[in-house]
């Protein structure tokens, strides 16, 4: 299992890191100095075969979801096992990171392109039929 307990590239954050109003197509996720690991490349991130396998790193980001909402829909997929109400707004973000090896990255203040953005209220697993 390449990640603890099989959970994929996911970290717990404080509750106030995320505010969301899905019906309005608005949300924000702000995280500062989140401790993570830099795995250098995707294959190594998946299979952990390089030596050293990773370096300590931190990242900070601020993502905003906002209108216009281009679609609202209900979706139930019983094969995969989830259901929910979703909206498709736009998103923008700032992002920075640095690792212990001296590499750093900071996104430019110039506008970002929202390729795909989604907000919703959903349930799966034991809550699917709830």
């Amino acid at each position, binding site marked *: 299992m390449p990640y603890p*307990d099989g959970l994929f590239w996911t970290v717990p954050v404080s509750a106030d890191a*995320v505010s969301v109003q899905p019906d309005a197509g608005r949300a924000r996720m702000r995280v500062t100095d989140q401790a*993570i690991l830099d795995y250098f490349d995707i294959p190594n*991130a998946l299979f952990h075969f390089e030596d050293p396998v*990773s370096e300590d790193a931190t990242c900070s980001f601020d993502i905003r979801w906002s209108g216009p909402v281009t679609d609202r829909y209900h979706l139930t997929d019983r094969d995969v096992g989830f259901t929910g109400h979703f909206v498709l707004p736009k998103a923008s973000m700032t992002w920075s990171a640095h690792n212990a090896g001296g590499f750093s*990255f900071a996104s*430019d203040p110039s506008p970002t*392109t929202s390729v795909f953005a989604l907000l919703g209220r959903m349930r799966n*697993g034991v809550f699917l039929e709830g």
Partner: protein
Amino acid sequence: MIPSNLDPSLVPQGARHVAATRHLLSRRGFIGRVAGGAGVLVGASLIRPGAVIAAPLKKNATPKPIPGGFEAGGIVFHTYSLGRDQEPSVITDFNGFVGVAQVQGTGTATNPDGSTETLLYDTDMRFMKGVYVGQDERMHQGTFSFI
């Protein structure tokens, strides 16, 4: 953005990452750092939660991954790619709010030798905020970031 020198079998269909478009082969790290998958990948550095994932949580409160996902190298990685009809959550037994953002832009990378360069990035960032049944089979409230 997925480089041509990356094994396509390692790249989940439809997924995106922060991607470098210059000097892709100038350092070891540049090669894979523009690969697919999920999360954020920046120019000269693929930065992932990896093994620190559950550190702030007690083991028994850790969420359970969704049962499905994409397969690479015989291993199922428990996430789906971005899309209108795709499951956005990576946590199962979950009831709450989700957000997904695939965003592209430019940024400045600073290498260890002090040199800088402009890079393009392409992200897949998500959140899950709500209640979930943890590995202890108890209900918990939590907020999670897919980075």
